Structure formats: C-alpha cells, structure tokens
C-alpha cells in the first residue's frame, strides 16, 4: 500500500495556513533565501536533478524548461504562472492557492532568479474570487516583508472566463491584452513568449513544488515516486466516491489504492468509468484500477496522467450523456481560430445530441470517429485533441452502450439515479 506523503498540503489543516505568519512559522521563505544565494544555473541544475515534471498536464521536465531560456541575451525574461485551472475535473491548484498562497510566491522568487527574470505574472482564472483575494494579499505581504521588490516583482492578473487561456500561448496573448487564442509554435515561449521575450510558463503546482526541493535537496525528491516520475503530487478524487477530496501521494499510486483511502465507490454501486487526468485524457474503466498513476504508466495504458483529476462515475451514469456534456464544453470553449476545431466540435455535438436521445444509426458512430480523425492534430493547440479523447475512448470501451441506446430509441438511464440526492435518500 502506497503511503500518502503530504508536502504541499502538510499544513493546510491550520486555520491560518494562508497567512505569511503561518508560512514563516513552518520555514517559509528560507528556500528563496537559500536559492538567491546560489548561482542561477545551480538552481536550474538542482531542479533538473530532482526530476520535477510539469504538473499542469504535459509533464515536461521543469528544470529543462528553465534551461531553455537563452542567457546573456540582454532581453527581458518573464516568468508566467498558469493558475487558470479550468480542465474539467481539475481542482488542485485552487485549494492550494486558497490554503497556502505563499508557497507559490516563494516558488516564483526562486524560479525568477533561476531564469534571470525580474517580472513574474500569476494568471488566475477569474471565477475564483477568494483565491484572487488570498494571492493578492500574499503578494502584498511578501512585498511588506521584503521578499518581493528587491529585484523581483510579481503582478497578479485575473482572467475572465475562457478555458482556452489555460493553453500557454493563448494565456500569453490574453496577458498581452488580446483575445486568448493560441499561437503557432515554434517559436516556443522560451524564445518568444510574453511580449516576444524569453518566457517560462509553469503550472501552479510545479512552481509550488520548488521551495521544498531547494530546502530538502534533489535526492530527497528523487527518493519519492517511480523511475521517471519523481516526487509527490496532488491527486484529486471526485464524483461517485464515498469521500471525495485531495490526496497527496508519491507518483505511481494506483486508483485502487486511492479509492480505498476515499472509502470506495459510493455505497451500493460499482465503478463504470473514470478519467485519469481531466476530461481531455482518454477514459479508463474498472479494468485499469492497478495502473500506476505516473506519466509513463498512464501513457502506456493509452491515456495521459494530465492533471491527476480522477473523476469517478458509477454504473448509474450514461456514458453518452457524459461524453455529450464534455463535447458541448469543448464546442463552447473552442476559441474559433482553427477551422477543424471550431466547426468539428459543432458537428460532434449535433451527432451526440441525437445519440443521447436514442436517434441515429450505427453509421453515426463511424461518422463520429471520422470527424474526430479530422480534428485531432489539425489545430494550433491541444484543445481539439482533448475534445476527441472522451469520444474515441468511450467508443473503444462502451460501443455496445451506444448501440443499445439506439436499439432502445431513447435514454437507457434516468439522470436522477446518478445524483447525490438519490444516495442521500437511500442512506437516510
């Protein structure tokens, strides 16, 4: 049994955990003090050695990303924190920033020093007001305490409701004051990012992981996790589990283990399907309970670790309704820049709405796959790839349910059966 190891979450249960007093009480801002006394390249090397990989979904090695910033180029460098947490199912950065915003500020100071940036921006989605308050206050308090303002400035930037701005180049366009639409790469942000200057864009959890690595060393971090997926991370369990929540564990824990900690699937029900890392990662079923939840393990099984957003659905849930709703989301959030994504997601929704109502023929299932084939990989960014993931994977594992619904000429499931209100009644 893999043991939980709270590092990021270690002090979240203290009522004042978000204050600078609480953070300092637990050794806060010692890591930045240590890092600022180090050569920037040595900081990059330490983070490389730790094996830390991006926690925003792609899993790119963080230290390597920092190392791509050209040095001695006489250009402004920028650090941008992606706090635009919007991937359906993903709910880790929001509670992290609410409970301990200072670890993010301290991580920014260290990362900015490493990449020789004087300015850092934290781009937070606009729909989480209290998180905005906490981070804003933390920045103010860090200035007052002298941690900021001595060569490193942090600016808080609040989004305004656009999933696509979680895509790093769309985020940069948004931060520059344009519509948030992705850019064609190359050039990558490390060469031409914010204001066309060398820029590192990192996820909140990645940056927040850095202070502990600086203090405890690369070997300590390396000692946790699996061969190529090091350290601890936040796994977020939601949906039809008895006790949903955040579980910080070494990479490589399995869903079977996590479910045991969460009290299992809700009483009297069984697992039907789940996402390993948000709605853009192909779904899994009860056949995948023992897959190690690290970057390689999940990829080898045909999906992606993504944001470790484990959304659990039991047998009362219609796979078609679930996939339709995700597809409606992607259609709504497609920024409209690339034709295959803009038009394709629209057509996918039309077909899935019919299928959800039990209208159509088996040929429509092939048409769905054909449209998916014409969308994935044919757009600037990965939104389109995410949009087709639930469709293709659901047809892989639940094609028969689609056919049964067509034969039934109507929905096979009563939506009320999957709600929490039903189980509350049953348990009363």
């Amino acid at each position, binding site marked *: 049994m893999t*043991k*939980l190891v*709270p590092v990021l*979450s*270690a002090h*979240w*249960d*203290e009522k004042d955990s*978000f204050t600078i007093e609480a953070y300092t009480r637990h050794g806060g801002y010692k890591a930045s003090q240590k890092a600022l006394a180090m050569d920037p390249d040595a900081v990059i090397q330490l983070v490389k050695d730790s094996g830390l990989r991006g926690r925003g979904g792609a899993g790119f090695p963080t230290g390597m990303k920092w190392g791509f910033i050209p040095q001695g180029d006489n250009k402004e460098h920028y650090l941008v924190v992606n706090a635009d*947490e*919007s991937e*359906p*199912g*993903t709910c880790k950065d929001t*509670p992290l920033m*609410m*409970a301990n915003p200072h670890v993010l500020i301290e991580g920014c100071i260290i990362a900015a020093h490493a990449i020789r940036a004087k300015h850092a921006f934290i781009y937070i989605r*606009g*729909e*989480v*007001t*209290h998180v905005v*308050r906490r981070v*804003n*206050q*933390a920045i103010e308090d860090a200035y007052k305490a002298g941690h900021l303002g001595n060569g490193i400035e942090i*600016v808080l*930037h*609040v*989004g*305004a*409701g*656009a999933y696509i701005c979680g895509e790093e180049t769309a985020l940069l366009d948004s*931060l*520059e*004051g*344009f*519509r*948030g639409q992705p850019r064609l790469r190359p050039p990558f942000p490390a060469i031409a990012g914010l*204001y066309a200057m060398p820029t590192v864009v990192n996820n909140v959890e990645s940056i927040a992981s850095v202070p502990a690595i600086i203090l405890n060393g690369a070997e300590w971090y390396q000692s946790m996790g699996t061969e190529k997926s090091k350290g601890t991370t936040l796994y977020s369990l*939601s*949906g*039809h589990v008895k006790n*949903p*929540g*955040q*579980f910080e*564990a070494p990479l490589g824990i399995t869903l079977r283990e996590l479910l045991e*900690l969460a009290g299992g699937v809700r009483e009297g029900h069984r697992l039907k399907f789940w996402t390993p890392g948000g709605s853009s990662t192909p779904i899994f079923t009860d056949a995948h309970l023992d897959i190690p939840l690290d970057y390689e393990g999940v990829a080898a099984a045909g999906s992606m670790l993504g944001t470790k957003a484990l*959304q659990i659905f039991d047998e009362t849930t219609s796979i078609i*309704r*679930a996939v339709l*709703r*995700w597809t409606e*989301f992607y259609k*709504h959030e497609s920024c409209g820049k690339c034709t295959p994504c803009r038009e394709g997601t629209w057509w996918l929704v039309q077909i899935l709405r019919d299928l959800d109502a039990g209208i159509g023929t088996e040929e429509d299932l092939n048409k769905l796959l054909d449209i998916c084939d014409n969308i994935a990989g044919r757009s600037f960014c990965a939104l389109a790839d995410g949009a087709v993931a639930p469709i293709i994977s659901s047809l892989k594992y639940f094609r028969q349910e689609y056919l049964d619904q067509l034969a039934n000429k109507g929905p096979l499931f009563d*939506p009320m059966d999957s*709600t*929490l*209100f039903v189980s509350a009644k049953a348990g009363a």
Partner: protein
Amino acid sequence: MAYSSEDLATMDSIIKRYPRSRSAIMPLLHFVQSRIGFVNGEGIELIAQLLTLEAAEVSAVATFYTQYKRTPVGEYHVGVCTNTLCAVMGGDAIFAGLKEHLGVENDGVTADGKVSLEHIECNAACDYAPVVMANWEFYDNQTVESAKDLVDSMRSGNPKPPTRGPDTLVTWKEVSAVLAGINDGKANEGLQAGAPTLLGLKISKEGK
C-alpha cells in the same frame, strides 16, 4: 461621466502594473464592471482612450471572455456548474430547479434585478460537487433545495455566506473590483480549506 477622478486614478494605477499598457485591458474591463455592473459602450471608449487603442480593439477583447457582461446582470449572479461531473451529481437538477423557481432562463435576470442565472463550466471544485457559484464565490455540495434557499436569501436582501469565501457575500460590483486586482481586505476571512481539501492530510496523520 460615470467615473470620478478617484476612479481614473485607480485605472491609471492598474495600467502602471504592466510593462506594456495594453496588458491592462482585462483588469480595466473588470473595473468598468465594478462601476457600471457590465461593460457598456462608454466603458469601452474610456479604456480605448486610456490605452490609445481603437474602441473596436477593446470591444474584441470584451466579447471574447464570458465573464464580461454586455447587459446588466443581477446584484447576485448565480452560476450552476453543469459540466459533466457536477451535472451528473445533481447540477442539471439544480439548474432546472432554479430556472423554475426564479422564472428565468439561462442568462436571465429576475424582475427585481436581484438575481441572474447562468449555467457555467467546471469551476475547479469537483470534490465539492455539485457546485454553485454566486458572484464567483463557492457554494459547495448543493442540492436543489439548498440552491433555492440561497437565491431566496439573496432576494430578501440577506444572502447566505459562501461555503469557502468571505464572511458575507458581497455584490457583483464589489466582486468585480476584486477581480480588477483591488484588495477589499477580506482575504483573511473564511476557511483556509474545506473538509475534502484536507481529507488526504487527515488520513495521513491517522497513519495510513
């Protein structure tokens, strides 16, 4: 002119946060909403003038993002998450219940101007599903009944406090100022974390 000299000074300070002024468009649009309640033509013109842009350039940004409203919303803007997970757990039933209870459709505002309703996408609180947001504050673990009680409390002028948020629910305009980056002094109010956020930590301390 709806903007005082103090407002203009605030807008100037927002612009000065950034190395390049155009980056201030988004917080300035939030600021306009904090004064007017939505983004109107006058606000667009003012931002264009402050940033030396064409009004069309500001308008292009304002219309891209769903949080910028082009018509007035309620004093309390209620969003029900109907993305897959919340929808399945009860969000669809909550949204249907509120539409009926308030007598409005999606994006509708009650006749008294108190409450507006919108179905929203995933709001990063899935372990608290089903989730309702009001003025972008968290109301966790909702039911059809609790959501109806919530909007009733708003209409009677005494809104229930958020589950994870400040001690009292502030108005749409006040929240818009926070989103423009203005500190309202409420960061220290409310919980540091709800029970699901702390579950793994609790279990770990129990030695598992």
